[in-house]
């Protein structure tokens, strides 16, 4: 057993119906670290996330979380173990109020004190959510929705969070705010796996990176090295963002 790792996935094979998407993915996330999982559209990122959070059952391979096997468990059981997937901002419940959405995140914590503490913590990270707590979630901006989803993930006081493209469809300034919050959450003791298409931002945030392509891990390495890696390899990562950044960098 590997005590330094919070999450260890070995040779995950899986997909939907009879369509195989993951062709043997292995990755590790060390305790207290941010790890980036990079890849373009249709490379298997989301499918891997679903396998980790239990929404689909891997066909073969194993997933170990905090020293225990979790593959094949129902998603709500995995949440109770302390592994929470943070959805994209658009997947908040639009017809509920902001505070209801947050309390939903604390579903596995029925104790009143824990729920109140969670709300306080969430509002501490994202004060704007406190101002809007009685509003319908559908009225929030894209960035606020993403903040809400991260805060909602924190509500169950997990050991580790899986973030599904926290920068998707957001303005650069907002992305910066979100990534600052993520890095603060990590400094305060959280382990995170961040799935991203925004390669450069993600590698600046993370300590270690994986690139997934065609359902297998293609490249992995320390984030600093990957940023400075040659342009050909970075172009794997889906394109223009990485390419443009290369030209600007000295």
């Amino acid at each position, binding site marked *: 057993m590997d005590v330094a790792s919070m999450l260890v996935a070995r040779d995950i094979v899986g997909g939907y119906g009879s369509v195989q998407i993951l062709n043997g993915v292995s990755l590790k996330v060390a305790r207290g670290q941010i790890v980036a999982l990079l890849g373009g559209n249709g490379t298997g990122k989301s499918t891997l996330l679903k396998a980790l*959070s*239990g*929404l689909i059952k891997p066909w073969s391979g194993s997933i170990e979380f905090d020293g225990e096997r979790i593959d094949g468990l*129902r*998603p*709500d059981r995995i*949440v*109770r173990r302390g592994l*929470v*997937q943070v*959805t994209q901002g658009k*997947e908040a*419940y*639009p*017809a*509920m109020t902001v505070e*209801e959405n947050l*309390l*939903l*995140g604390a*579903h*596995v914590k*029925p104790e009143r004190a824990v729920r109140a503490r969670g709300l306080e913590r969430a509002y501490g990270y994202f004060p704007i959510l406190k101002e809007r707590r009685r509003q319908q979630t*559908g009225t929030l901006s894209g960035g606020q929705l993403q903040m809400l989803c991260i805060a*909602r993930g924190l509500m*169950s006081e997990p050991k580790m969070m899986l973030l599904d493209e926290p920068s998707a469809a957001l303005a650069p300034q907002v992305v910066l705010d979100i990534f600052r919050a993520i890095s603060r959450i990590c400094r305060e003791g959280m382990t995170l796996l961040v799935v991203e298409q925004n390669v450069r931002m993600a590698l600046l945030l993370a300590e270690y990176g994986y690139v997934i392509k065609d359902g297998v891990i293609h490249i992995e390495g320390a984030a600093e090295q990957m940023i400075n890696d040659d342009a050909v390899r970075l172009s794997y990562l889906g394109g223009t963002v990485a390419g443009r950044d290369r030209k600007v960098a000295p």
Partner: protein
Amino acid sequence: MNYFIDLVIVGLSLGMIYGLVAIGISLIYSGLDVVHFAHGEIYMLGAYIGLMIYNTFHLPLPLVLVGSMVLTGLVGVAIERVFYRRILRGGGGYTVSGMAMVICGFGMSIVLQNVAFLIWGPRAMPFPVTYGMPVELGTITLPAAYVWIVVAALLLMAALHLFLKKTRLGLAVRAVAGNKEIAYLMGINVPLTISVIFGVACALGAAAGVLVGPINYVQVLMGLGILIKAFAAAVIGGFGSLPGAVLGGLLVGVVESLGAGYLSGSYKDIYAFIMMIIVLMVRPAGLFGVLAKVKA
């Protein structure tokens, strides 16, 4: 004028009954993504179970009501667990329902009718409870039954509202109705929550059956008419919307009662449907409905 008010009161109490059944249909639709065509039989079963409780224990009506709601709710949970869930699992769970579930609902309705027929026989049975003396409100005197039906239904609806808005389980129910995958990621036990939704919906149907019992006979085929009326109510209000189901129920009840009083009693069953057609022509999503599925 008094005649008009009488008709409206009768219509409102009838509408409350339709509303209770329609809420159940709407709850099941938004939670399970299926239209439950056996819900009229749940209402019938609720009335019989209430009658059995009354005949065996001679409890006061409010206790009979609660007892029947609990038992019928449990029967509903059993039906969902044993039959519906198995059928839907083959199709990928409750989100991919399609035709099989509709047919299954009709089948369940016939099965429940025949089960009731075997247990209680073909004869209509009286529900020997009286609601008590007429209630006087100002200048008008109302039969107690209608007043108590409205009061009881309102209390049940308020309880449902508080449950959905104020409790942890209620929030989970709304989350499952909105999106099952996200609900799972919140740590909600989705299969259990679906059973809760089905049980609550059946309990409300049973309440409608018990409330109607004393002013009507309890009989095996009583579920047919109510299903169609409640269905019309749910469509008028906007399928899946709970306030819509109540409002739709009240509209159907009042229109039906006024139509029967002023036009002709022998056509009373068509007024609801004429109204449903008109509402659908003007607002295809129903009064409170949304065409895009944004719920919870």
